[in-house]
């Protein structure tokens, strides 16, 4: 009786023997059939359709013209700017999220509460509205400038600049950097850290030699989860950039709005290349995608 209880309490499996799952559970392969059909029909086939549209013209003849549109100076500039802003946002997110994830992983806070608080609950205020609210904060007569005026400080002009878009990106995607890093940090075995300390490592050494290397899969997931949506957004730039700053997402959305589907698809293919690269890097570092959620 007691042994059984011990076995039962052992259950949160350590990540090391993950591969032992499998043979004991219901062998019901057919349970995955609806999923397989669904994912083939609505994930894989649509991706083939977008590739088809991107590589053909109105008369269904093969062409590379749509993809080559990315080389148009205007579009190239939009891609370059999107790349630049999303890179900066990703770095800022990483710098903000890493210490946060570390603090939270050490505290006794329950992980579900934490996920709910930083990701789920804010989503019940629509994402567009939350981004619009940043206009109120950043505007010429907004909250930041009112506060600055009160202290007789010069006003800052943030709205409709790249800085506003970076802020919008950091705001919207920061939780997706915190979460994967937090998820790998809570899995770090406390004994490993204690062993390092026992063997004479100081705090900095323990961090550099133990915590940092073990948290890399989470960092990589976080980078992917922030970089891809930042690179491809068109909403944040539309709301906080005031149509002055055009990112590649805005260009593609514009093409679809005017019915230019082949051109829009062609440029989406260019985005997909970046996404594929990120996914390849991610799968190299995080084999089971276990830090994602």
């Amino acid at each position: 009786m007691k042994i059984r209880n011990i076995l039962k309490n052992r259950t949160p499996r350590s990540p090391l023997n993950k591969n032992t799952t499998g043979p004991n559970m219901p062998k019901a392969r057919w349970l995955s059939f609806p999923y397989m059909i669904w994912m083939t029909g609505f994930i894989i086939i649509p991706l083939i359709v977008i590739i088809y549209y991107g590589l053909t013209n109105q008369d269904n003849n093969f062409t590379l013209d749509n993809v080559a549109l990315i080389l148009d100076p205007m579009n190239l500039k939009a891609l370059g700017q999107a790349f630049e802003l999303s890179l900066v946002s990703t770095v800022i997110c990483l710098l903000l999220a890493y210490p946060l994830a570390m603090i939270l992983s050490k505290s006794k806070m329950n992980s579900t509460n934490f996920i709910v608080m930083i990701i789920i609950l804010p989503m019940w205020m629509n994402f567009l509205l939350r981004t619009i609210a940043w206009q109120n904060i950043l505007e010429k007569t907004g909250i930041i400038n009112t506060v600055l005026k009160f202290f007789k400080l010069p006003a800052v002009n943030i709205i409709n600049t790249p800085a506003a878009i970076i802020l919008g990106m950091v705001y919207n995607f920061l939780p997706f950097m915190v979460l994967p890093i937090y998820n790998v940090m809570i899995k770090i075995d406390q004994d490993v850290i204690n062993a390092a300390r026992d063997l004479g490592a100081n705090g900095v050494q323990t961090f550099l030699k133990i915590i940092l290397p073990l948290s890399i899969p989470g960092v990589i997931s976080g980078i992917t989860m922030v970089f891809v949506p930042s690179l491809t957004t068109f909403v944040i730039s539309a709301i906080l950039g005031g149509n002055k700053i055009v990112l590649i997402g805005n260009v593609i959305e514009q093409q679809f709005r005017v019915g230019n589907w082949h051109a829009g698809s062609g440029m989406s293919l260019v985005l997909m290349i970046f996404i594929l690269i990120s996914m390849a890097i991610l799968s190299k570092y995080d084999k089971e995608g276990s830090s994602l959620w």
Partner: protein
Amino acid sequence: MVRKFFERFYVALIILFLYAPIIILILLSFNSSKSRAKWGGFTLRWYKELFKNESIMNALSTTLIIAVLSALIATIIGTAAAIAINSMKKTPRTIMVAVTNIPLLNADIVTGISLMLLFVALRFTLGFTSVLISHITFNIPYVILSVMPKLRQLNPHTYEAALDLGATPIYAFFKVILPDIFPGVMSGFFLSFTMSLDDFVITHFTKGPQINTLSTKIYTEVRKGIKPEIYALSTLMFITVLLLLIVINRRNADKNAHKSIASISKI
């Protein structure tokens, strides 16, 4: 001590950063000026007018119906898939996990466009059904990711024991497996519901001209100025969920307390 203080301060600062816009939106819902930019005094007018505004109410009901249906269907397909994936050998499992990751890692704009092109290629009219299908598609991975960890924690022998004792696989599933993974199933459902509610980009591309969800309605109003009723509605939704979560949390805390007392008394 100082370190603790800085840590707390840092966490508080980030939480403030994440919730500042939400506080502003709640304040705006009580603002009697129609303009977002200036404060015209306190009012409850928008809360009254909200329920008379037919287009907002229509968008709300479309949003909620799509959220409930997509979360429900995604939960069923996703839970079944998670059980199957969990029992697979290494290679097929890796493939399935990779496919599950596609919608999570892919850009929303690409997912939205590719689904729209599929519907158009199939001569399928864009509208309620196309949005529903799209939402189910991006919700399934969240369900799988919520259920998977619970399946990994299961004690596999209880299921075998149930079969040995003569239970049919289906009976054993409902009596042994489902109760254990149920918290994961529920969080998958709740997560899907929330994702569906908050989605804009994929809905924008797959909805066609006939219908609007709250997100797409807000987007059309961004340039003209948001109707204050929308702030009132969002505030109501946010507060409802906040209260709901507090209640659930309390109840779970009580339950856990009972459980630990029970386990102590057993010893």
